[in-house]
């Protein structure tokens, strides 16, 4: 296990983010890690509504960062991670825009893959964000999916 405290960066912002500089930050002063895994989530043209033209992301500001920190800390307890960087955007987005970014680094690839996947699975079910799609036939709130709830099962955590 990694004995040093992992370096954690969590941001909730309206602005777009730059994956290249996030990736550079993962590599800076990092000679111990063999594996970086990152996930990037984008606005799709066809989601639950057809012909999506935009997406509005509402959140619960006082709770959002606290919730994300809790999820990342769970991941750090479970896997030996050196660095975690997470960005989630809020506000008005458009098709192909970046929504969310999670990067983790570890000595070994299994830990990096699992931790990144775990963080996304829990973010989807526990972090207070809500998406409203703008479509060619009007606005609609995105429905939570049963498969996202089931995605948590693989992590064997007793989580309502």
């Amino acid at each position, binding site marked *: 296990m990694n004995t040093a405290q992992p370096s954690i960066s969590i941001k909730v912002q309206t602005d777009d983010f730059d994956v290249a500089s996030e990736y550079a930050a993962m590599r800076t002063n990092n000679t111990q890690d063999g594996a970086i895994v990152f996930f990037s*989530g984008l606005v799709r043209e066809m989601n639950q509504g057809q012909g999506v033209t935009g997406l509005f*992301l*509402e*959140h*619960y500001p*006082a*709770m959002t960062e*606290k*919730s994300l920190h809790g999820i990342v800390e769970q991941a750090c307890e479970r896997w030996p991670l050196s660095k975690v960087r997470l960005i*989630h955007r809020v506000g008005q987005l458009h098709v192909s825009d970046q*929504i*969310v970014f999670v990067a983790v680094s570890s000595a070994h690839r299994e830990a990096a893959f699992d931790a990144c996947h775990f963080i*996304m699975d829990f*973010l*989807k*079910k*526990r*972090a*207070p*964000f*809500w*998406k*409203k799609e703008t479509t060619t036939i009007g606005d609609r*709130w*995105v*429905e*939570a999916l049963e498969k996202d709830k089931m995605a948590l099962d693989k992590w064997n955590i007793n989580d*309502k």
Partner: protein
Amino acid sequence: MINILFFAQLKELFGQASVELNIETPCTVAQIKQSLIHNHSAWAEQLNKPTIMCAVNQDMVADDHIVNANDEVAFFPPVTGG
């Protein structure tokens, strides 16, 4: 007095982002829901949904969670971020 926050569909359907509730504390989240429905019968359908989520002081909690004076209580639909 407890300050209750609503988000997403609840905020839209209730036409407000928050409400002050006059209720004796400590009480449970379930009792807060009942009291809100008592005051606003139109909110029953939403607040009675089994999927509705509640956070107290920004942590997710279940219906039997104890709420104290000055706690921040929030109700919202299942989250859909990421």
